[in-house]
């Protein structure tokens, strides 16, 4: 095994850290910590983007790193914290499955994700192609988190984390999507969170809580 260059080691470490963060989010009970973990995830992705930009010299990646930093590390966590304060939803979240079970499911999902990413990894020519599997795993783990959580806020964070995973996947497979698409996606994410903010207030006005089991009445019986 020839030693990898330092840059590559750092990228690998970031990828591994992202995977770890996904599991941390999966097992995190408190909403406030969840938002912080989401911010850290954004920061790791921004750092990775910077490293890749520095290594490949692709200027648009600097912009997308700045965009990630502004949107996912600064603005969205700030907005979510603000929402949490305004809505007074600082109480704990409770996962549906017990944590050990969720973790085991998570491990199975990671193995599945690695299998799924295998053909892409073989074809990719980027220096981070090994991280594609991790990106897929992050997406699927966020999906798992959305399934296991009952609180509106944690589902939203799951949704955002899924988007983070996709962004990371795009970067590891192709050094990022074209700038205009990335801008569009960022705009959509931003609008989505704003719309959800409005939505939270509507839900709370109606039910006095953000617990989603209130939202299970509409079924086939009507």
């Amino acid at each position, binding site marked *: 095994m020839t030693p990898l260059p330092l840059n590559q080691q750092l990228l690998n470490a970031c990828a591994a850290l992202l995977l770890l963060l996904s599991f941390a989010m999966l097992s995190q009970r408190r909403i406030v910590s969840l938002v912080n973990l989401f911010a850290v995830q954004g920061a790791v992705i921004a750092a990775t983007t910077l490293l890749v930009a520095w290594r490949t010299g692709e200027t648009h990646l600097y912009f997308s790193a700045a965009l990630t930093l502004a949107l996912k590390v600064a603005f969205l966590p700030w907005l979510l914290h603000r929402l949490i304060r305004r809505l007074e939803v600082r109480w704990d979240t409770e996962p549906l499955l017990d944590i050990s079970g969720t973790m085991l499911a998570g491990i199975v999902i990671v193995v599945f994700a690695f299998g799924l990413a295998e053909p892409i990894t073989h074809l990719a020519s980027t220096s981070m192609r090994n991280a594609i599997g991790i990106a897929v795993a992050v997406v699927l783990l966020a999906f798992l988190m959305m399934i296991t959580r009952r609180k509106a806020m944690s589902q939203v964070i799951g949704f955002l984390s899924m988007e983070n995973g*996709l962004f990371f996947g795009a970067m590891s*497979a192709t050094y990022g*999507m074209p700038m205009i*698409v990335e801008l569009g996606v960022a705009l*959509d994410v931003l609008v989505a969170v704003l*719309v959800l903010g409005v*939505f939270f207030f509507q839900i709370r006005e109606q039910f006095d809580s953000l617990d989603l089991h209130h*939202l299970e009445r509409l079924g*086939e019986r*009507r």
Partner: protein
Amino acid sequence: MIGLSFLLGIPAAGAIALAFCGARRGAPEINAAFSFGTFVAACAVTLRVIGHGPQLLWSGQFFIDAFNVFLVALTAFVGLTTSLFSRPYMRVEVAHGRLTPGRLRLYHSMYQLFMLTMLSALTTNNMGLLWVAMEGATLSTVLLVTLYRTPQSLEAGWKYFILCGVGIAQALFGTILLYFAAEKVLGAQGVAALEWTRLNAVKSQLEPTVLALAFVFLLVGYGTKVGLAPLHSWLPDAHAEGPTPISAVLSGLLLNVALYAVVRCKVLVEGSLHSALPSRMLMGFGLLSVVLAALLLFRQRDIKRLFAYSSIEHMGLATFAFGLSGPVATFAALLHMTVHSLTKSSIFFTVGHAAQKAGSQLMDDIRGLITISPTIGWGLMLGALAILGLPPFGVFASEFLILTTAMRQQPWSIPILLLALGIAFAAIFGRVQSMVFGETQARRLPHAPALLPVFAHLAIVLVLGLYIPPYLAEWYRAAAHLIGGP
């Protein structure tokens, strides 16, 4: 081209203008005026494409060919008629106290924004921007679904947002994979590597394994928005709980545009794979949706949910027809998309009025429409007959074409399809009949509601059933050729 700038510029301007004056007295008229402007622009674009063939505009960022131009025209037309319908309808809602002026402003502004996202999704040449526009369509309608702020509408809105959000995230991954495969062939060209026209030119060189994987994700993603089973569960809720004009445009337009996205992807993937996998998947999902929707139709008690399930069924049928591939089936699918869109929106118009009069969406509470108002009664009856595929209407023609093609290519599917259509017929016809002709104590309405859009739609559907004008037929044929191959 100037037409395209108007096509996208008018709804954008409308969204901004109505964000300021959407609560004024004349706002519904302004909304209709903007929709009319969009329709005129769409007609201009259409004439241009008919005259000059496919157009690649604005340094290749927008692309209009026979396939999407007819959807553009359809979208603009249904957008116009729906805005005409919503004019008196929303006034009554405000008068009933279900809406505040602020929410009316939101409604008008978002309506135009929704049209903008639909039209940009249709006309963009960039698969990435297509995704952005599709997500934008969800975001602009999610607050419209919750417009009444009832617990049920909030639930429906949440489900709509989360399910479509997750679905659309899968589509983003599919798009990333597409870009990944394209970059291998086209080289690092940035935005150009996601242009559909370029991808289409080199589709046979794209890496098949990656594209197969991409198609799975794209189909699941956009398929969620088409309402394909098993990811359909947002659709009935969103249709039932939102205001009726929104149900009409969701059913008549959004589903079409999502299916359009799926078909665009299918063309690329099929060119790369040289196998029947994409077609099989479309057929499978389509058939599943048809069967599931038909079975669930019987259990519905809410009239808007009933017709929402009928939408799932018809979109399933169109998806199935695209899966059959070949020009005839594709022709039938395009025709089916058109007539379904027109018929279903006209049904929602009448249903909206009927429910508004009855003060309830439960079918048991709606009785004797023919006595209350013959126009509503006949409108609903004719609309139901049209959507059920009875002969002179266009749905009959398209379903007949789909069934005969399926008979030749996939005979095993015929019994399933016939059974599902039969079940759907029984479920819908029985309900509609009792709603239209049942006994009622309600008084006759003093004046007939303005149902011009309903009869305009039904008239077009009728004409399409009897006779397809040659230029329209030519147009469909060109589109079918484009998608289904020679």
